[in-house]
């Protein structure tokens, strides 16, 4: 008999009882459908242990790596602490190590993280400001011995959170933070697979992390990054990315400008929206792995377009920045 800990309460699983059945028996509302491991509406998170292998059946690899499991299939093998998948509680405090402008409106924020905090590059965390405004930001660096994460924060007009970070937050301050969330991170299925990374604006952040992760893990297939902005000054980290192109013969970088475009731009930038430039660059995308980050409309259109161009559903990873574009 195993004990389930869910939202600070303990529940006892009967012999051969699934996690879903246990919680439903206790009158806890847990989303579910087929109860057969097919519809995946009952997916939950195992916080403190690897869930039983069979309870991850049919989940995508990146979900498995995040310890997601299907509660309707899970008969616990040991006591488990479980949670809803988007567990956005502010369980950590991170200290500000550095702030640095990357271009006219995007700031690199470096935070020292808690020892217990683990992440994969490209995942996001939630942060909370002094006046309790919360926002999600993607992690743009890879795990390191110095225990820091880097975020790329774009200053929005009247942005309450980004304004606070840019103007008020000081080196040494503490910021409440959540666990690392989301499934948009490098999944090394085959080292030779070709990777397409497309981002707009600060959608570069997760892609920058995913790119570094792939390169550090010696990814062998082509990696092609398309980063788009309206104007040249909206793009950033151009020099670092150009340097990476020199150092890695499988890496290609195409910065794109969708607004006013002139002859001076021609030698450095492609003309058009990043997603459109990317689509016209390849006649088919059979067997590619694709990562899409940034404006929700771009992400949504593009995931359909790359799928129709030959990418399998399982090979598409997305991170849509909804809150950035809400009115």
């Amino acid at each position, binding site marked *: 008999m195993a004990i389930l800990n869910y939202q600070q309460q303990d529940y006892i699983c009967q012999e051969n009882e699934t996690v879903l059945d246990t919680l439903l028996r206790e009158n806890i509302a847990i989303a579910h459908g087929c109860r057969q491991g*097919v519809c995946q*509406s009952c997916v939950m998170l195992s916080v403190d242990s690897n869930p039983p292998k069979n309870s991850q059946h049919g989940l995508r690899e990146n979900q498995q790596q995040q310890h997601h499991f299907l509660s309707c299939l899970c008969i616990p093998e040991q006591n488990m602490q479980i949670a809803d998948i988007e567990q956005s509680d502010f369980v950590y405090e991170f200290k500000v190590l550095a702030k640095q402008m990357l271009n006219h409106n995007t700031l690199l924020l470096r935070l020292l993280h808690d020892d217990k905090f683990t992440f994969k590059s490209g995942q996001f965390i939630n942060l909370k400001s002094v006046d309790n405004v919360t926002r999600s930001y993607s992690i743009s660096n890879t795990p390191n011995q110095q225990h820091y994460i880097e975020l790329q924060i774009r200053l929005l007009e009247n942005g309450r959170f980004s304004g606070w970070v840019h103007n008020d937050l000081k080196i040494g301050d503490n910021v409440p933070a959540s666990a690392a969330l989301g499934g948009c991170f490098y999944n090394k299925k085959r080292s030779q697979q070709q990777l397409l990374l497309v981002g707009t604006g600060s959608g570069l952040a997760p892609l920058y992390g995913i790119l570094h992760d792939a390169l550090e893990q010696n990814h062998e297939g082509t990696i092609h990054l398309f980063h788009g902005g309206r104007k040249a000054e909206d793009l950033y980290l151009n020099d670092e990315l150009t340097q990476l192109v020199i150092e890695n013969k499988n890496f290609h970088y195409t910065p794109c400008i969708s607004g006013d475009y002139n002859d001076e731009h021609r030698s450095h930038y492609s003309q058009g929206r990043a997603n459109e430039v990317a689509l016209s660059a390849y006649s088919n995308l059979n067997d590619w792995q694709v990562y899409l980050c940034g404006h*929700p409309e771009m992400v949504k259109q593009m995931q359909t377009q790359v*799928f*129709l161009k030959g990418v399998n559903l399982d090979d598409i*990873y*997305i991170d849509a920045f909804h809150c950035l574009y809400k009115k």
Partner: protein
Amino acid sequence: MDSLYEKLGGEDAVNSAVNIFYRKVLKDETISQFFNDTDMNKQIAKQKAFLTMAFGGPNNYTGMDMRKAHAPLVKKGLNESHFNAVAGHLQATLEELGVAADLVKEVMVVAGSTHDDILGL
């Protein structure tokens, strides 16, 4: 006797069919408007649930569940022609995968049996 699902190849068959089938659905402008979930994981799960069910595989969906799942679509105008379009893509997918004609027929019977529930009749 193997079940229809086993004869088709079970979960592997669902996995090979899902990309082909869903590409046909999204390319069909008469029905693509019904499919616009942004969450990639959900899209994959729903398509696999559909195929598993049509293949006679393990599921606990009742007619009522199917009514509920498709009721919002019926409100948006889901009708006979859409149902036939989806069924057609299912059939074309199986044929493309080289599934034997008698098995294709069996799948179409399973799909056809959901007709009234899907359309809320």
